[in-house]
């Protein structure tokens, strides 16, 4: 299991890192924390690089290193990395640069083998997509963005499950809202639901939404199977059956006190591109974290 946590700044990424580390612990996952810096106009890439070299000779770090240093401190505080790394401090001198666009540092984890810190520069979607494709991550965890295009592109183009840490409040008592139906994605979503519920030690609402009054047999079976799996895993869970528009119902019930987990859409990429999808609708309108399982 490999998890990618995308952070952007010390001010806004604390919830993302907090949730990301919890999930990584639950899955015992090899974890990478990435900061994607702003794209520099191609006209000035070389002179900006040259300036940064000069800045380093005056003891200024290049932009983004401070974010990695902050992430390192967080990992150290949570004892997610081995003590010898914590004692040695942020290993600035072992930063490795690859192709001039990816800087990384390897650390040894306590709950998993690898913890990597990475710095990239460029268009965030293109960089995350490249990182996920090259390193085959299973889950990408990222903070919420108000931009519709960004949400669409994340779901459409990132080839891993996406956990969007939207409006997360560490003081809020959350439950998981697991969307259950007869789609192929549900089975995988339920498995993720179990692990996340265990990580956060919270209960699960298994929500099945039908557009018709009469619930299909497949829906009932999926809900029963999910409830059974929760029970076996020792997780407090209850089934909820609602009639209505699925996306709207999920958003309404989730409110701001749930973590939504749902399977990715099985629509063709072309349909998703032009018409959107249920997970995209939910993600855009919800006011809480959401995990879309691929």
């Amino acid at each position, binding site marked *: 299991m490999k998890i990618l946590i995308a952070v952007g700044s010390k001010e806004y990424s604390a919830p993302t890192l907090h949730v990301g580390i919890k999930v990584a612990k639950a899955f015992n996952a090899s974890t990478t924390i990435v900061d994607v810096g702003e794209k520099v106009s*191609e006209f000035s890439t070389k002179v900006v690089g040259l300036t940064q070299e000069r800045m380093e000779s005056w003891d200024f770090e290049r932009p983004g290193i401070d974010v990695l240093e902050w992430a390192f401190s967080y990992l150290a505080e949570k004892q997610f990395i081995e003590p010898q790394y914590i004692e040695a401090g942020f290993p600035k001198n072992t930063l490795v640069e690859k192709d001039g666009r990816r800087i990384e540092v390897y650390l040894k984890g306590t709950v998993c083998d690898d913890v990597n810190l990475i710095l990239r520069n460029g268009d965030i979607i293109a960089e995350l997509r490249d990182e996920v494709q090259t390193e085959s991550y299973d889950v990408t965890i990222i903070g919420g963005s108000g931009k519709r295009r960004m949400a669409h592109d994340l779901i459409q183009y990132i080839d891993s499950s996406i956990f969007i840490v939207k409006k997360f409040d560490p003081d809020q008592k959350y439950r998981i809202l697991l969307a259950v139906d007869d789609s192929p994605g549900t089975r995988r979503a339920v498995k993720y639901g179990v692990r996340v519920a265990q990580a956060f030690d919270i209960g699960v609402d298994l929500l099945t939404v039908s557009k018709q009054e009469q619930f299909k047999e497949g829906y009932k079976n999926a809900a029963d199977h999910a409830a059974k799996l929760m029970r076996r895993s020792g997780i407090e869970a209850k089934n909820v059956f609602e009639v209505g528009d699925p996306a709207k119902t999920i958003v309404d019930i989730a409110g701001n006190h749930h973590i939504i987990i749902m399977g990715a859409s099985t629509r063709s990429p072309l349909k998703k591109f032009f018409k959107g999808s249920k997970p995209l609708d939910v993600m855009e309108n919800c006011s809480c974290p959401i995990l879309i399982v691929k």
Partner: protein
Amino acid sequence: MLGFSHRSLTNFLFWVTQKKWFLVTMMVGLILLFLPTPVGLTLSGYRTIIIVITALLMIITEPIPLPAIAMYILVAEVYFGIGTANEIASSFMNDAVFFIMGSLMLAVAIIKQGWDTRIALGIIKLTGNKTANIVFGFTAISAILSSFIGEHTVAAIMLPIAMTLIRFTSDDVSKVSNLSAVLLFSIAYGCLIGSIGTPSGGGRNAIMITYFRDFGISISYLNWMAKVYPLVLIQIPIVAWILQKSFVPEYTHLDSGVRKLAIQVAKSRKLTGRNTVAAIIFLFVFLGWVFFSETIGLGIIALTGVLCYMIAGFVRWEDLNRNTHWGVIILFGATISLGVNIKATGAAIWLANLVINLFGDLMETFPLFSDSIIVLMTTILANVLSSSATVAVLGPVTLNMGSDALHTGLVTVIASAFGYFTAVAAPACTIVYSSGMVKAKDFLKVGWKVGLMSMVLLVIYANTYWLFIK
């Protein structure tokens, strides 16, 4: 769908998303290609204008790498029958491209010498610890240096000095946000206003000199300075004043910051013989520009300097190769080729006449209107394109817009330095923005004031001072 897997469809859609501006540009080009050729314009002239429009759209949106845009320009010129392969190749390379290549390499050689500590010491000695004086000092030093060695070199040298001063004034950046903005903008805008001062101040100046030569106009290094340098000097205090009014610094005096900076500079390594020789080589390059650029060319002299630095072992080829943006050089070569062909195909005169026909009456009624139009067009383009590309494509047009090509050409090249409004147009602004200490919106917030001042001042200056020093 049609045998394509979901993955390949997703890859295709991602490509479409990333390259949408390329596709839009090609659509625009195709539509224009099928429209009838405008009256009074040759077919090759019309096709050249289509290449200009499509290339500019791609330079602004960067959907494909810059060298790819250069290749597009070159191959399109041949495929559209604007010139033969050999003609296009010869229009691609000239002394202005040599100068751009040489000045980018000189920047690497100079920045590697570590002159920033000496400059820091010089600024402190000159300005003392009063913030207003320091801001004036940063603007003046940036402007004067960039007038000789190019804005990107100076911005790279000055940025660490300003950042160190800010850091020594307060560890909490939120407590010195205005001070940060005022110092960093004094570097960026100082570099911009200075870059017009001499022919070696920027690649665009060298491009305009090449165009002047095609018009049979010769202007020496000192003659250029006599015409333009007073404008640099007038703008320095005004820019420093506008910046301090826009971002009122949190401290009126920077006692501790200046003291700590002086201590840090004193700790740095002493001036070596090597540094002195490197400075002497640059001095010879400068003297070469002043006395021989009209006969030998700015580019050849810049390359001679680079050659000397390499022979002396002051810079390694690996460093030059790694830090020189070859893609930018190729692109400027291609835009110059485009500029040459705008003139050769008659498109330049047609475009100039179009502007004159549009505003002819106003131009006759208000004598300054013609310059105002040139300044406005150039400033707008320079803020979305690069300044050199602006001069390369706009120069041949504006040179045909009045009876005095030297006048309109100089107005164009000066206005191309007014890239104050965005963080991406001018390298000096991008360098300062890359520090993360100023926001993109700050450029607009203060840029419009400085931009308006520079535009108005230029129109008045060009129509008063130049009348006396013909």
